[in-house]
């Protein structure tokens, strides 16, 4: 059994850990609110962008010559995966969930005999992936210095992706991020951005648009922007998810620390009492033997 002094020290250390986790939880809660707001405010833009592209691609007459960003290269050989994670740890399963999702996708691709390239955004993802897939990572981007997700950063990532696409370095691009549902639930998502997935082909708008200049030119202009927009959306969702995840993780940690302090305190009191009893017995049996 640990001595009284050791127990006392442990209680003190658990208590100070509790203080830290509690503070982190509060900070995360405050940041979460802001991140959630900006995620919600950012949604109209990406939705509208999607809508316009949908309308455009429905209106496009010549499917054969559609821009490559929309229709793909026609091949399915090289996959580029953009794994978006956070730059900081201590946020529960946030990063691991993305990585898990990404890894299962990776092994599927590799089993099919396709080539894999990875771009990691955020240092935590890079740390976890470089052990197994180190040779596949072609770029690691990190925005440690920017406080909040901003469009400028997203645009940078978007440009890198488009550059690589135009250089013919990959055929299909998928981004991985956590979608923010609520504080306790974040859903890891795999979203294909090149070529654009038009699964929800609800052709409800028979309305024909007038285009100025023509469709192709608008699409050529718009599609690269859409990539950045999707990435920005992913970044916003990610930052809200990160804070939410951190908040619930720190909440749990604070609670666990409280339980531990209770348990240790009981143990401390018990062993204190045991020591007193022992001393009494010693005194009494000493007196009796006289």
């Amino acid at each position, binding site marked *: 059994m640990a001595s009284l002094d050791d127990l006392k020290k442990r209680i003190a250390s658990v208590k100070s850990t509790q203080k830290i986790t509690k503070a982190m939880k509060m900070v995360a809660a405050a940041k979460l609110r802001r991140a959630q707001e900006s995620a919600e405010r950012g949604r109209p833009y990406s939705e509208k962008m999607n809508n316009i592209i949908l309308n455009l691609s429905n209106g496009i007459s010549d499917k054969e010559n559609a821009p490559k960003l929309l229709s793909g290269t026609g091949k399915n050989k090289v996959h580029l995966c953009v794994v978006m994670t956070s730059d900081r740890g201590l946020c529960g399963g946030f990063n691991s969930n993305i990585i898990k999702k990404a890894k299962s996708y990776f092994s599927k691709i590799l089993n099919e005999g396709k080539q894999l390239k990875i771009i990691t955004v955020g240092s935590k993802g890079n740390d976890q992936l470089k052990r197994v897939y180190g040779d596949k990572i072609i770029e690691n981007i990190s925005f440690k210095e920017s406080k909040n997700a901003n469009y400028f950063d997203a645009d940078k990532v978007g440009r890198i992706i488009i550059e690589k696409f135009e250089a013919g370095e990959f055929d299909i691009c998928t981004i991985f991020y956590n979608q923010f549902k609520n504080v306790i639930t974040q859903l890891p998502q795999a979203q294909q951005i090149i070529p654009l997935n038009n699964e929800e082909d609800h052709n409800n708008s028979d309305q024909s648009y007038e285009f*100025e200049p023509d469709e192709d030119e608008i699409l050529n202009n718009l599609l690269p*922007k859409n990539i950045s927009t999707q990435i920005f959306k992913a970044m916003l969702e990610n930052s809200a998810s990160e804070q939410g995840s951190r908040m619930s993780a720190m909440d749990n940690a604070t609670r666990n620390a409280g339980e531990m302090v209770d348990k240790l305190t009981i143990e401390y009191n018990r062993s204190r009492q045991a020591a007193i009893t022992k001393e009494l017995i010693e005194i009494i049996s000493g007196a009796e033997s006289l």
Partner: protein
Amino acid sequence: MSEEFKIEIVNPEKSFLVKEDVLEVVVPAFEGEMGILKDHISIISFLKPGIIKVFSKSGDENYYVEDGIIEFKNNNLSILTSAIFSVTDLDKSKQGDLLKKAEAEASKSEISDQAKYLADQKVEVLRSIN
């Protein structure tokens, strides 16, 4: 009959402006300025750097945009842009910053013709705001 329609300007961070009582909007479309009134035909176009003029019952407003795309449909005008500033909020220093940036871009030698054209446009519009 009312002559009003709805305008919505969004940038990636937030919904920038929503107005329901707009009478006319003039946008710097890529192939020249374009005025939009109620019951305009559905149109999609993109913008070059310039001034968006919004005429509405509750007052006129001007916005400086650097790029963007507009969609007009069912008397809803949506403008998506990544860089927009209200002209009245645009103070001298901010304007100077933007101008400097645009000038630096325009003076680069290795840019494409289109990028050069856009940068020149920016410079021109920013100078004209004064």
